[in-house]
């Protein structure tokens, strides 16, 4: 019984949240990795792109709520998602046309593009603050839980409860659909294959008649969709706060690099590696240990390896370890 309680506590506080967070990081990292593979630079404005798409989703959700449109138990934000994607797509295409295109034409070094993307990041950040401010906002509506802790305790008779939120399940489901669509697109469609070809060997792709501007445009569209989906899922799960998305950049980049930059499969694996490490290392195991230990005994401390304040340090540490021992990442991306 105590063992089961320990397991439930662990599932409740580590496995479930880490799976949801992992899925969010994975989709975010997919966007970063696609940009890296095809446009060949690390896009620091990716966090802001996510925030921008999510902001539009949030605003449209507000409108729908006013009009009384809803999806019943599911969050209204799902309905607003296409609008967010369209807005994010318009934004990145606009930045590409006004900013990145120039640097592509003069064949700027990747390092220069990284700096440029930081500039874009600050611009986008300013725009976000102007439109929506810096407040914390919740926009998840509909049914909050699929399984409530109290109900779970009643069903099972365990003293430990398991709560699964709608947004967590939704995150996983939407992530699965998104990834399936993306892989089908990259591997089975002609357009997707041109993107892969361009990522494999730019010179040869050009000489095979692939139009680089088209590939770049489609990449941005796909990236805008991924960024908005990732941002919205994160915002639904936690809350929407523009500044948080800038901080998310670290775990997202860590995921992409750990998995191997330029490798979509790697980005997904990396997302889960980072999420599980971060949450496991910062979780206070006191409860779990108490259940597992002898009756009536409980540890003095929290049994927490790292305080939650250090959660970003985890990404950083994993990043460094991977770069030291396997610079191309787990799935053999381009070395950085």
């Amino acid at each position, binding site marked *: 019984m105590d063992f089961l309680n320990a397991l439930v506590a662990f599932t409740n506080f580590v496995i479930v949240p880490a799976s949801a967070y992992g899925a969010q990081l994975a989709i975010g990292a997919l966007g970063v990795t696609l940009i890296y593979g095809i446009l060949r630079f690390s896009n620091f404005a990716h966090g802001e792109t996510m925030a921008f798409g999510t902001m539009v989703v949030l605003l449209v959700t507000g409108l729908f709520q006013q009009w009384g449109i809803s999806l019943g138990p599911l969050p209204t934000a799902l309905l607003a998602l296409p609008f967010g994607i369209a807005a994010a797509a318009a934004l990145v295409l606009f930045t590409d046309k006004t900013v990145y295109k120039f640097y592509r034409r003069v064949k700027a070094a990747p390092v220069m593009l990284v700096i440029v993307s930081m500039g874009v990041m600050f611009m986008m950040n300013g725009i976000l603050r102007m439109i929506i401010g810096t407040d914390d906002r919740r926009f998840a509506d509909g049914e909050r839980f699929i399984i409530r802790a109290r109900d779970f305790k009643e069903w099972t008779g365990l003293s430990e409860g398991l709560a699964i939120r709608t947004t967590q399940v939704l995150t996983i489901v939407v992530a699965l659909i998104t990834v399936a669509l993306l892989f089908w697109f990259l591997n089975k469609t002609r357009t997707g294959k041109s993107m892969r070809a361009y990522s*494999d060997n730019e010179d040869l792709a050009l000489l095979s008649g692939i139009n680089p501007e088209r590939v770049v445009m489609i990449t941005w569209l796909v990236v805008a969709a991924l960024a908005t989906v990732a941002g919205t899922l994160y915002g639904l799960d936690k809350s929407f706060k523009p500044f948080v998305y800038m901080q998310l950049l670290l775990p997202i980049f860590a995921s992409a690099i750990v998995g191997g930059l330029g490798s979509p499969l790697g980005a997904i694996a990396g997302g889960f590696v980072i999420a599980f490490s971060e949450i496991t290392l910062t979780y206070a195991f006191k409860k779990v240990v108490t259940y597992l230990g002898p009756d009536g005994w409980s540890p003095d401390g929290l049994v927490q390896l790292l305080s939650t304040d250090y959660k970003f340090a985890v990404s950083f540490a994993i990043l460094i370890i991977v770069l030291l021992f396997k610079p191309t990442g787990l799935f053999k991306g381009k070395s950085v």
Partner: protein
Amino acid sequence: MIEVRDLHMHFGGFRAVDGASLTIEKGTITGLIGPNGAGKTSLFNCIAGVLTPTSGHVFFDGEEITGMKPHNLFHKGILRTFQIAHEFHSMTCRENLMMVPAGQHGETLWNTWFGRKRIADEERALRAKADEVLEFLTIEHISDLKAGEVSGGQKKLLELGRTMMVDAKMVFLDEVGAGVNRTLLYTIGDAIKRLNVERGYTFCMIEHDMDFIKQLCDPVIVMAQGSVMATGTADEIMSNEQVIEAYLGTGVKNKKKESAS
């Protein structure tokens, strides 16, 4: 068919191509030879749009194509292979060939979702075509291997195969024969000849193997130090004092340098 007029390609202060002028007549297999570092590959890169020349002009059928982007040249029917074989390493050899014919139906996002039947037909035709080319090059056994994992010579054959996937007009071959075994070299030679006669491809090929050149090429252009030194039939070139001396000369010079150091 191709006319190059006073072309210059400078890398910093270094003149890789230094005032080269030449014409490639329609329907010929023109050879391009010259010592290492003569600027042959650089010249190809300028014509094929990989590099933008420092100055000078390139014409294709009378139309100026200087500095045009490679994908636009591709659509005009100008193709090239790379001296150091390039490939889409994460795709199979067959997929590598199937990537070539651009402007297909499946290329627009709309059709990706709504024109599935036509795309499927197109894919099937392409696949058959790719298999035919692979068989022709006697490398059908590597069809399903990742192109990044096959041997250097096989990559070279794949390069040649790429030019056979579409109806090209003008094909630039940069040492297709290098690193390919003898028997296969003759097969490649035959392939080039057949493409030339049956499909009317015009070729310009860089090659170091004089036997191979002699078999296939007429005329032959000799490049040295970035410009054209002589033009003529293979026999004329081989008995041209100046050419012999240029080759010998560089050889002797190198030897002198070696012994001096």
